[in-house]
């Protein structure tokens, strides 16, 4: 998967959790909680969706790696590469 593919998938899961977020105006450096207003349940649902889509464990200790779209795309890319691809 290219970083663009990962970003597309991430934004899809993010906007599914928070349907009012406009993918067109989403800034990749916006913070999930502070800027986009995700609460802990929204964030957990996002992590659950990513887990389901990518089959990655995403432990709680890695949550800070998902703080922004840019960070999440890098994290998911690394995790997928390390998984054996």
């Amino acid at each position, binding site marked *: 998967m290219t970083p663009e593919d990962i970003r597309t998938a991430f934004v899809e899961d993010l906007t599914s959790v*928070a*349907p*009012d977020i406009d993918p067109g105006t989403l800034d990749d450096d916006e913070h999930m*909680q*502070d800027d986009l*207003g995700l*609460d*802990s*349940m*929204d964030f*957990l*649902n996002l*992590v*659950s969706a*990513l*887990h*389901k889509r990518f089959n990655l*464990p*995403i*432990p*709680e200790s890695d949550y800070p790696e998902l703080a922004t779209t840019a960070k999440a795309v890098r994290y998911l890319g690394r995790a997928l590469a390390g998984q054996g691809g």
Partner: protein
Amino acid sequence: MPSLGADMEEGKLAEWLVAPGDRLARGDIVAVVETQKGAIEIETFEAGEVLELIAEPGQTLPVGAPLARLSRPGEEEADAPEAGSSPSRTPEPALEPESEPVAPTPAAEPAPATPAASAPRPVHVGPSPGQGALASPAARARAAEAGLDLAALTGSGPGGAVLLSDVETHLNAVPAVKAAPGKPATKGKPGLDMAEMRRAIAAAMSRAKREIPHYYLSHRIDLQVAQEWLSATNADRSPDKRLLMGALLIRATVRALAKVPELNGRFESTEFAPAGNINCGMAVAMRGGGLIAPAIMDAQDKGTDETMASMRDLVARTRAGRLRNSEVTQGTITISSLGENGVDTLFGVIYPPQVALVGFGSPRVVPVAHDGAVAARVCVMATLAADHRVSDGRRGATFLAEIDRLLQEPESL
């Protein structure tokens, strides 16, 4: 049209989920209604067969207007109760101080105020098929044409009979009744009118501040043990099975109510009625503003994992606009938790007719005295806003202390 809150005056039927001939059991979901709180699934409080769907999707109807007719097993059609009418209104009796009571006297000059303020308020309590109301034939015909329930009108004719002029006045005053398209307003999401929601919050909170003599208590709870247990538990779980601290806070609060049951129940009109079950309202902030507090029904029977599953389900359905009427009208206590990114302390306003609101600020690492030394530990400020007509600070303190005690043993919650 059931009342889904003391502040609700009308609702718009979004869709029917049943058809004539369907046999219903008590609690079956029969329709979806759009309200100030978003789309709500309406449950029937009566078993029976659907005889007739009176309201049409898209129609806006005043609270109390019949939506459909059911046959009660073994009874004549004429006695058919109205689906979703009286039982759901009982918890919110016609005592609604937010709005002017409708004078039963002939109103020669109806107030041309806002549609909401001038809409006649149905005050009948028992099942009362609209056809039984006193009305002139012309009024009856016009009301039928407009899809209006005669029982919802105040008649100015002899013996309170509804005249054609009453129907016209009502239709002119409440244009929305004529299945009009939705009002233009800022929409947070489909089926949710933010201005209406703000109005609903304002009405409920004004009533709380006017009628309920609040007292407030605050207590800092050390969550270090709970946090460590949570992290260890979640480490072995896939994301969809993980717990949030919020689930522990709700579970501990629900269990603590067993020790101070007078905080759980409803204060309707003049008397407090303690509730046998705990329908634990959970304040859910709407993205884009506003707040809904749907209840986790029978929370006393749900362990931590089940509580978490219920929370997930409720939040998802709140966001999607698919709550059930029991969940928005039958709460017995409310918990408002700021989650991870809020401030230290939340001072709650009780959601009438409940008598207590428990608030949790954001858990934070703070310096506290622990085992004779100062240590950095995760703590949360728990607060209680409670109704002084029902309980006193001493009992409230017992309650917060019990929540604290329970949270020190998270594994046995």
